[in-house]
């Protein structure tokens, strides 16, 4: 960093020097100021974004974790504390269950629907797609929390993981259909024609021909849905009552010691274990399909 700054500034002064008047000297001074500003901005950003994350890197491995960041006395004992906690691993299992439930539901129903929408012009199709897009952005978990809670109450689906899956699946479905339809549009039709000539029905064609070709799209949308569900706090927080059904996002906030203090050994290790899957998944998919510039992976 310093090396580049030095050479650039130097290179500029040699071309611009000696500065006879104010107008001449301005660009090089400006450039120098610019380079310094740039370095300062980079340093500030590094500090700003790293500072809160440091705790996650040190506390889980510290024999006596506190809230402040310090060089840890290395130990893995905290992980044992976590494994022994009655709710920690169970809640991660719950998170997996919820994510899987939503992904399976959304991918099956979503791909069937988006395939049909891609291949057949149903009256009002474009309006429907437009409405779905609008819906996905205005009916958010926060804006619709009261009626959703109320509805689940009436359906006796409070404290049911199925209820949570249904609500979250409905929440991501519009986006899923919308994006999947775009992928389905790009699948070449000639394959389907030959499959049809060979006597395959529409579902068979979808499963054997279209799905394998649209796999990158399906993977992208699956990961996107998992990320949405994995980190979701509000929906399970409102709809689930029993601690043994709660996913990791909610259970994290129940880890207190008998003294009423947050149990840091537990929270820190748990946070790490809870974060790793989504982070790994994000970078894996990003490397494989490179869709990060779309920015759609996390709302």
């Amino acid at each position, binding site marked *: *960093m310093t090396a580049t700054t030095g050479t650039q500034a130097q290179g500029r002064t040699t071309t611009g020097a000696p500065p006879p008047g104010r107008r001449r000297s301005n660009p090089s001074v400006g450039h120098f100021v610019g380079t310094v500003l740039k370095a300062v901005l*980079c340093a500030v*950003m*590094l500090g700003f974004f790293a500072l*809160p994350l440091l*705790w996650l890197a040190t506390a889980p491995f510290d024999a006596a974790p506190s*809230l*402040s960041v310090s060089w840890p006395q290395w130990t893995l004992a905290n992980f044992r504390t976590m494994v022994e906690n009655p709710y920690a691993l169970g809640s991660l299992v719950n998170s997996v269950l919820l994510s899987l439930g939503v992904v399976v539901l959304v991918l099956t*129903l979503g791909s*069937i629907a988006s*395939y049909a*929408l*891609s*291949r*057949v012009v*149903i009256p009002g199709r*474009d309006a429907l797609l437009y409405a779905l*897009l*609008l*819906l*996905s*952005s205005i*009916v*958010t978990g*926060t*804006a*619709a*929390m*009261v*009626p*959703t*809670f*109320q*509805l689940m109450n009436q359906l006796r689906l409070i404290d049911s993981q199925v209820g949570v899956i*249904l609500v979250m699946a*409905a*929440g*991501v*479905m519009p*986006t899923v259909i919308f994006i999947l339809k*775009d992928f389905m*549009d790009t699948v070449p*039709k000639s394959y389907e024609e030959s499959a*049809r000539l060979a006597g395959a029905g529409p579902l068979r064609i979808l499963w054997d021909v279209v799905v394998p070709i649209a796999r990158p799209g399906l993977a992208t949308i699956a990961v996107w849905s998992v*990320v949405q569900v994995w980190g*979701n706090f*509000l*929906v399970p927080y409102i709809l689930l009552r029993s601690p043994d059904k709660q996913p990791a996002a909610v259970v*994290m*906030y129940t880890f207190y010691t008998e003294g009423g203090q947050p149990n840091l050994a537990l*929270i820190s290790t748990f*946070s790490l274990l*809870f*974060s790793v899957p*989504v982070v790994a998944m*994000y970078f894996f998919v990003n490397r494989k399909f490179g869709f990060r510039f*779309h*920015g*759609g992976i*996390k709302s």
Partner: protein
Amino acid sequence: MSRPTDAAGALPAVVTGGVRRGSARHSDVAGLGRARAGAFVAPALALVGLFLVFPALWTAYLGMTDYRLTGLSAQAPNFVGLDNYTDTLTDPAFHASLRLTLVFVLLSGVLGQSLLGFAAAWVLRTTNRAVKSAIEFLVLLAWIIPSSVVSFLWIALLDRGDGTLNAMLGTEGMSWLTQYPMTSIIVFNIWVGTAFSMLLFSSALASVPPSQLESARMVGASTWQQLRDVVLPHIRGHILTNTLLITLWTFNTFTPYLLTAGGPNHESEILPVYIYKVAITGGRLGVGAAISLIMLLINLVIATVYLRVLRERK
């Protein structure tokens, strides 16, 4: 992320107008036929209809009752007409919350995330690779790590007793979250959400022809002039998209609740937290529904503007 990671994922930024396209090529090669196609679409629509559309529409009715979580009106709610709406719209607590939300969206979303995201994208273009990927990695981590975890990281950072910030600044015993609750959640939200703007603007900047920047530099244009005269006209559309999406997400985020729970004394009670407290904690479902509807309408306005803009750009 969310931000903004609330149930209904937000508007996909990926979308580039499947609505507009498509009608040109619709050969029904699989031999679906309209009836069967309808049957294919129906299950997904049923799910969306029951758990997304119905609750949204039902809000309007619920908002006209005195529905409560417990007690007499939980059994037999009375119809109270527009009382909840007039009460809400004249309630100083609602006004206060709306004002806080406005400040929150403006400072943390529209200004904070957009400006920092743009600055990062602009500076990182010409930074050396190691620094660039380090910064990008950290900014992305802040965005990807689940909101429950990042909230706790900030609670640890800002803790009164032995938070890292106090240790660094030597401000022992300073309780940031109760002394400066709004500032805290604003900075927090900038930290969480800048990644999106950074990604969007770096791909936007990549679309600016280097030759134009080069010739601007040749004639001695300052960085500011280059930004204004060369870059800005190219990325105007991206700026709009970014601003509208960020507005929508910041407006709907519930995560600050995990930091301050709206407190102390309602000082950081942005609208989503306010609804939660009125309806779920306070048990006044009817009033909560009325506020929800107001929130849905605001979302509708923002989203409509966004879709308008998106259409005009094509």
